[in-house]
């Protein structure tokens, strides 16, 4: 479609600019309408994500509100008796689940944080290209490992080892779950920390080398500190991934409902060698055969709401950290 240069209806020749403008607006009236419509259509698609997120939140609150009214949020957050279907003395204390989730997740992070950060530094700063070409796909394959397979391996291989090592009759413990969860959180921490290290400008490193710093000194004093916010974001997202993980903990942690604590010389400490049931595992176990609309059903939505709030906060903090890093490296 070339530019129109033609005679008007009355035969007079018009200024090229005017003709062009008129022709363009004439020709594209229909396409302009379509253009406008399509923009709005895509806007709707864009808003679906927002809509779904609010729908989830709305639905968790809606379905959980019955239980929240009847039982009260305080009972859920502090009670330790969970007998949601007992006709005589029903109990709705979710503290054992919350404690178990937090404990198993922190246990996983204690392993995954040094493991992940060191691996990320190694990949981003140290490894020669050929080694990196082995490490990066390995991390990617770990990231796509279906969680049910990791749970299965924890169940059939890891738990007998744990049972043997600690002389337990049953190896399905919080420790077993933490170990396998650390493998799950690892790819998240590595990939985000690595991205963050890569985003540190080359000048930083070159300036350090120019001042006579060794490669290790440069990493320790320049690169890693500059990437700190991003690395922390990776850790937060790793936490979110681990706290929300279901299949591995469901298969590896044993699922007994109890406070995972024991007394140790008069001090109460978390007991990693006991069977635990996390928030996610409890929803999976009880959700499939609970009767819809019951107080028990509603209680499960309260548990989901607690999980939703935890992961929401974790995401916001990670978001803030990533933006902070971007601002910092962008401005300097």
């Amino acid at each position, binding site marked *: 479609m070339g530019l129109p240069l033609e005679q008007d209806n009355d035969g007079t020749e018009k200024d090229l600019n005017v003709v062009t403008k008129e022709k363009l607006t004439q020709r594209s009236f229909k396409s302009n309408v379509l253009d406008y419509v399509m923009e709005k259509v895509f806007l709707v698609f864009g808003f679906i994500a927002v809509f779904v997120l609010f729908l989830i939140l709305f639905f968790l609150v809606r379905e959980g509100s019955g239980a929240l009214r009847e039982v009260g949020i305080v009972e859920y957050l502090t009670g330790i008796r969970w007998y949601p279907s007992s006709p005589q003395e029903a109990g709705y204390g979710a503290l054992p689940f919350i404690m178990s989730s937090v404990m198993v997740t922190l246990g996983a992070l204690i392993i995954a944080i040094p493991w992940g950060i060191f691996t990320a530094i190694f990949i981003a700063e140290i490894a020669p290209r050929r080694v990196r070409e082995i490490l990066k796909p390995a991390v990617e394959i770990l990231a796509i490992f279906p969680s049910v397979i990791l749970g299965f391996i924890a169940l059939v291989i890891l738990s007998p080892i744990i049972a043997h090592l600690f002389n337990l009759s049953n190896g399905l413990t919080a420790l077993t779950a933490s170990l396998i969860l650390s493998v799950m959180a690892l790819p998240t921490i590595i990939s985000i920390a690595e991205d963050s290290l890569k985003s540190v400008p080359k000048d930083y490193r070159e300036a350090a080398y120019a001042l006579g710093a060794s490669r290790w000194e440069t990493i320790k004093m320049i690169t890693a500190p500059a990437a700190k916010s991003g690395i922390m974001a990776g850790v937060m997202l790793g936490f979110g991934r681990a706290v929300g993980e279901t*299949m591995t903990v469901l298969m590896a942690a044993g699922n007994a409902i109890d406070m995972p604590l024991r007394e140790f010389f008069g001090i109460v400490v978390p007991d990693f060698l006991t069977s635990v049931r996390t928030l996610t595992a409890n929803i999976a176990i009880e959700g499939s055969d609970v009767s819809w609309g019951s107080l028990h059903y509603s209680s499960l939505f309260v548990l989901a709401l607690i999980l*939703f709030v935890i992961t929401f906060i974790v995401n916001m903090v990670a978001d803030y950290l990533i933006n902070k890093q971007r601002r910092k490296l962008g401005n300097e």
Partner: protein
Amino acid sequence: MNKKKMRTEKIWFSIMGFFAAMTVVALGLLLFSIIREGASVLSWSFITEAPRRNMTEGGIWPALVGTFYVSSLTVMISVPVGIGAAIYLNEYASQGPIVRLIRLSIRNLAGVPSIVYGLFGLGIFASFLQIGVGLITAAITLAIMVLPWVITASEEALKAVPTSFREGGLALGATKWQTIRQLVLPSAIPGMMTGSILGLARAAGETAPIILTGAAYYSRNLPTELTDSFMALPYHLYILATQHAQASAVRPIAYGTALVLIILVILLNLTAIIIRNRFRRRNEAL
């Protein structure tokens, strides 16, 4: 560099190398144990036969088909929506509060635990809308779950299309939509396919959401209706490993299922990576 500095550096680099090596070792151990135990079970009849004798014999055919059904449906729902959202974000939206809100929602959706999606799906589709549990409920639930990944991957594909394509289209007097449809989308499609396949792989490996929304412990027939419950590989593995009365007797079958599942997921990802690389090379050539 003095000797002490060199020694310190050497020690630290070794420590980090050790941790990096552990990552590969962990993966190696996982793959090795599954392949060693699973390979002996794997056969043509294992893949094409239905389970027999309370799942202690026979194969995994219905679970394989169920996984194929539910993940295909998931992709059919999530990909159009995901591509649409990506087009808005990359082509139309200008930075502002609306876009920030959308992006924030996408990132938060990616962080919502899978079991929460499962309970949400059960609550809204099965119980509130009275669809019941089955293929379609599970597929919509999974589709919502993979949506953030599909959007992100589609956006990457759109970003890789050179700006000159758009400028060229607009300079010729085409409207924005004409430019997108005829110039931008055709070159972004391979990248979008990558995102779709990755979504497919994720849906195929997920267990937690389908436990609550339609996976069956054992079903004699393949699903024929959208509301039928279905067998799926990951759920089958979970059942064999933890819920079966003779858990140790069916262990070989469980290993075989795990092996088929991991091969399936790795193959899908590999396909996606190959398409992505070919696409990237083509765009770099432009």
